[in-house]
């Protein structure tokens, strides 16, 4: 039986008071780094593209502040928007590769604390992820690279729990085949 991933509860930091009015500056200060990290893990690409995603996400947030109830909900909302925008970029990237076969550069992955072996492994992993359908890739990355629980992954991918399990399973099968599961 495969072991469970390292689950982390996506609760709010203790200082967040639910239900308070949402301020854009505060939102950006609190979650800017989180969105950048999530985008980097989903994209597996360099700073420029990550910055673009962060910019897109918070620009949308600036227009929809009234739709976000409080800081607690903001994290989930930002995760959903980030996932959607990254998905769009990944689809565009796949489309471009149909015409222009650009090789992935392992140095693109922003992993300053990784050892050379880990960096090589990450490079190889993102090469495999690039071959997967975008929905499967996003679901697997949220589950295993970001360590999100299944219900959060389903919410971020805007699909049912069953669908997200199916997508993760399909992606996992390919990845296990490439890397082995021992």
């Amino acid at each position, binding site marked *: 039986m*495969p*072991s*469970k*991933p*390292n689950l982390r509860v996506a609760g709010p930091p203790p200082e967040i008071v639910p239900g308070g009015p949402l301020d854009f500056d505060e939102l*950006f200060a609190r979650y*800017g*780094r989180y969105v*950048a*990290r999530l985008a*980097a*893990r989903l994209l*597996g690409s360099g*700073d420029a593209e*990550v*910055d673009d995603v*962060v*910019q897109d996400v*918070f*620009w949308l947030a*600036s227009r929809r502040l009234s739709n976000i109830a409080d800081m607690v909900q903001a994290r989930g909302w930002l995760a959903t928007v980030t996932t959607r925008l990254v998905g769009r970029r990944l689809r565009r990237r796949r489309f471009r590769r149909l015409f222009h076969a650009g090789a992935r550069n392992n140095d693109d*992955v*922003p*992993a*300053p*604390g*990784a050892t050379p072996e*880990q960096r090589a*492994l*990450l490079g190889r*992993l993102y090469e495999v992820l690039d071959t997967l359908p975008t929905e499967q890739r996003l679901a697997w*990355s949220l589950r*295993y*690279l*970001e*360590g999100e629980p299944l219900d959060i992954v389903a919410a971020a991918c805007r699909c049912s729990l069953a669908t997200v399990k199916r997508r993760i399973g399909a992606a996992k099968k390919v*990845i*296990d085949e490439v*890397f*082995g*599961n*021992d």
Partner: protein
Amino acid sequence: MTDPLWTVLGEKVEPTWAPEREWAVRAAIARRVGRQRALVRTAVGLASIGLLAVGGEAVLRWRSAAPLSPPVASSTIAGASATGTASRTGPAPSPDREAPAVTVTELSPGTVLAPLPDRNGRGFALQAGGARFSVPHDVDHPFVVTAGDVAIEDLGTTFTVRYLNASELEVAVEEGRVRVTRAGANTEISAGATLRVPVAPSVESSREPERAAEPGIRPEPAEVSSEVARRPPSARPASANAAWRPLAERGQYEEAQRALRKAGPSAVRDDTADLLLAADAARLGGNPAESVPYLERVVRAHARDPRAGLAAFTLGRVLLDELGRPSEAVNAFALARSAGGPLAEDALAREVEALFRAGDVTRSREQALLYRRLYPNGRRAKAVARFGGLD
């Protein structure tokens, strides 16, 4: 490879999220928000223009269909080819696309106004009653109203001429200036002023003196002289306080500045356009220090206005270039920069210069490095490198 190991590996993916990067992203978001607002404003403006055009056309059609028998007529006359008369007894003048439009409003049913020959619609003879003229100034084609032996020439203005009685004429100026000529003597009067001048009765008005005393025309005592009768401040209309505005709009900044000083700060409305115009009058009229409160007012009280960035940038320039106050200029340029838009790059460059002039070499270098990062091919890179010590 087990699943928890992927999570451990995923945690290694961590972009460096430094304050400069955060700032650059926020600045980009601010620019996008600004662009979006500008887009919305443009769309609203175009929609408004469209609605006004449709509404105006509807009104014109309605007016052309309505019978022409109003007791008080108002007409717009296009100068060069105006062949009719603005008096209620005359036919409506034909429009002209080349000459600026003159708007004539008759003030009483007894008004008799005849076009002067050879003036191409830029001259009228007031024979009885009174009329209000709104006239775009045209140096080549001065607009003249004659009443008996008095000639009133516009200098870009809106003014009213009416007979108080058979021997006295009142000229009241709402905006701009007019020149009144009688018996070879010229008197110029400006906005808010009223001139009462004796007039030799014209043929028409001597024949019908009763017209001047019709309802709507204010009788005045006969002993009123022909000097400029300025109204007391309490009764002075808003246009008297606004005399500086048309001067500033015409680029006569020194005169505008003098008029503004005379009228006092209350003559400036608390809206961005008026505050910026007053700042221009002060700055370009030779008193840059007096522009500072107006610009600060825009920056502080109208910070959401899209022109606030421009105001902040102008404030920075005044403080740095005109007043030699670089420390304060730093803050102004920082505000202009945070407003985003096309001035952001220049604002950052000037901020570097202001920091250098204020003696803050460390920060000027930091900001110069930020400039280099944000605008690697920036047009002010050379100056920034010099002031930031990057050479």
